[in-house]
């Protein structure tokens, strides 16, 4: 067989392999992107984006960045969300304990009227800060589409755990424990 033919054939093989590899790569990209297409809450392991909201009923501003060094639980909720109502007492129950361990709970509320939240707060006797995301900006930023959704952010600002749907007391305790900074 001639040298040139062999060379040509080798070149052809390389060309074909490269073409097929590129095409398979593109298909893999498409299929994987398609699977991930459902916009989800900021994922585990990602840095939690900063936000700044008013503490409910006051002019006090809470910014996530200011809480660096603390564990932060961000809970998205609304008064019209039934399962949210169930987990509120659990949060209240554990709040003071973890507050001392340097864990903050931020309950980001999505209602539009103050009075509704005020009455709710009174009725449930909530002491953790409720932040009012009146325009849904934070919710949009975090891609939250279902309530309740909860993120557990560790002292480094990284999302340790994210939960869509209501939490039980046990689970809540466990997750809060996970983000408790070491002393």
């Amino acid at each position: 067989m001639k040298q040139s033919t062999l060379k040509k054939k080798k070149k052809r093989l390389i060309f074909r392999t490269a073409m097929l590899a590129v095409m398979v790569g593109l298909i893999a990209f498409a299929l994987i992107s398609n699977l991930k297409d459902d916009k989800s809450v900021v994922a585990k392991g990602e840095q939690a984006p900063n936000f700044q909201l008013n503490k409910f009923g006051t002019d006090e501003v809470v910014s996530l960045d200011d809480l660096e060094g603390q564990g932060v639980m961000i809970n998205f909720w609304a008064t019209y969300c039934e399962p949210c109502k169930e987990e509120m007492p659990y949060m209240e129950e554990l709040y003071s304990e973890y507050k001392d361990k340097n864990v903050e709970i931020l309950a980001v509320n999505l209602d539009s009227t103050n009075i509704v939240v005020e009455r709710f707060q009174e009725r449930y006797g909530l002491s953790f800060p409720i932040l009012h995301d009146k325009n849904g900006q934070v919710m949009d930023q975090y891609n939250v589409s279902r309530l309740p959704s909860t993120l557990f952010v560790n002292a480094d600002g990284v999302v340790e755990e994210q939960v869509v749907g209501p939490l039980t007391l046990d689970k809540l305790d466990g997750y809060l424990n996970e983000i408790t900074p070491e002393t």
Partner: protein
Amino acid sequence: MNEITCECGHVNPEGTVLCEACGKPVEDNQHLNGNENQALLNMRYDGSARRSQTYNRTFIDKVWNFFSSVKVGVWLIVITLIASAIGTLLPQEMYIPPGSDASTHYKDQYGLIGQIYYQLGFHNLFSSWWYMLLLALIGISIIIASLDRFIPLYKTLKTQKPKRHDQFMKKQRIFGKTESDSIDMQLMKENLKKNRYKVTEEDGSLFAEKNRFSRWGPYVNHIGLIVFLLGTLLRFVPALYVDDFVWVREGETKMITGTEGQYYIKNEDFILENYDENDERFQEAIMRNGQPVPKTYQTNAVIYERTDDIVVGKDPELKEIKEAQARVNHPIKFENYTLYQASYQQNEFNEMTFKLHDMDDEDSSYGEFTIDLNDPETEYELDSGHVVVLGSYFPEYELDDGKPVSVSKYPRNPAFVFNVYPPGESDGEPEVSFAGIGANVDGSGENEFKVGLVDFDVRDVTGLTVRKDYTLPFIALGGAIFMIGVIQGMYWNHRRIWVKPKDNGVWIAGHTNKNWVALKREIEKSTKGTGIEPPVDQQELKD
């Protein structure tokens, strides 16, 4: 594994069916085009050496050759076609009523067939992995099959010589022999030129050709399809494509979702206009329709840009950049975003005015108060000194197990618990009552006062789709290339005529990839007066 040297001296690549230069059939390769025992030559790809038919050694070669086959391509198309058809039999998940659960909807609506449909994933066919894979395989097939054919065909058509082998001539569909010694080759040449053929000569043989470029049409359109497919792939790059939705109430200024907090929109007014029922032209059709036919959906909007540093959650500083109207078919465009009028909700409550009066006398009045449903006060002090405290507010009231709850934050069905304190008795026990749309319940049954609804104000909500799409230019380019390619390939035909002088006359042969009638007509016109007899269609004779 050897190159083939033809008797005309041309060296052809391995796998050649018809010599690139003179067209002589390469004896051992006739099976490649199915030419054995056939009176006429199969002229596809001009008998060039398609690469897929020559090497079949490594795994890569086998995969390559698989996709190179037109048969495989056609099968892929047919499978996609059938799958698509099944996908339309029942509505796709995105078209079932909002809020319904797909896992039960199909079974409830369509029974067993619905359940099977759902189980097999046909309810979401067009974004299923296997449908996408089918389209991708078609893409691969297009690329490989085109490469494998275009290059050899291009070479062959470039190499072809005017003088053709007798075997080639005889086996053309259009072929004729003229035995005569008075043949005017010069006139023939001129006639062909008059018919806009490009004529070349070799040893007295004439070769006339036109519209070779139409042979590239299929490859051009395939390039267009590939660009198109790649364009759709770009959608998966988040920076290039935003698809979001925003609801805005009249009078409200809201962040436009999907713009990363950069832009805000104010809904000045939402307009829904119906056709006039008395319009003579449309009267009958509107009657048949049984309900008003909408004429316009329009949002009058103001677009703002946020000028301060974006801190999510903080109240923004806004600068107006545009005042515009979004109508169906006429979206609002700003920067790289487009806002489409996509949906609306009418008559959401905005304000409600109540009057406090004696329980048994509707005409009495202790004063009125108006509740802004989007930002109610906690208490309202009336002129008479009575104080009405909002005990509870349910924007969208429903009864759940006998308990009043709100199912959303939007005032679609507002209800209140009022605590009424007579003047100077703000420390005492209030009178409690419950008021909503069409409901007014006395809390104790012995109330002295009643809070009655006297007036309300409603507003509309507009729903706009937010789009940013940098992939559109690619898609459009792909479509344009495809159209050019198809038109190039379909509206022109590659026509060739060979005239070869013989000892006692002349042979003539013709070939085209489609539209034989026109080719025959042109040959007939060109041979007029030259002494060459018009050739016959050998395929027609065969029947």
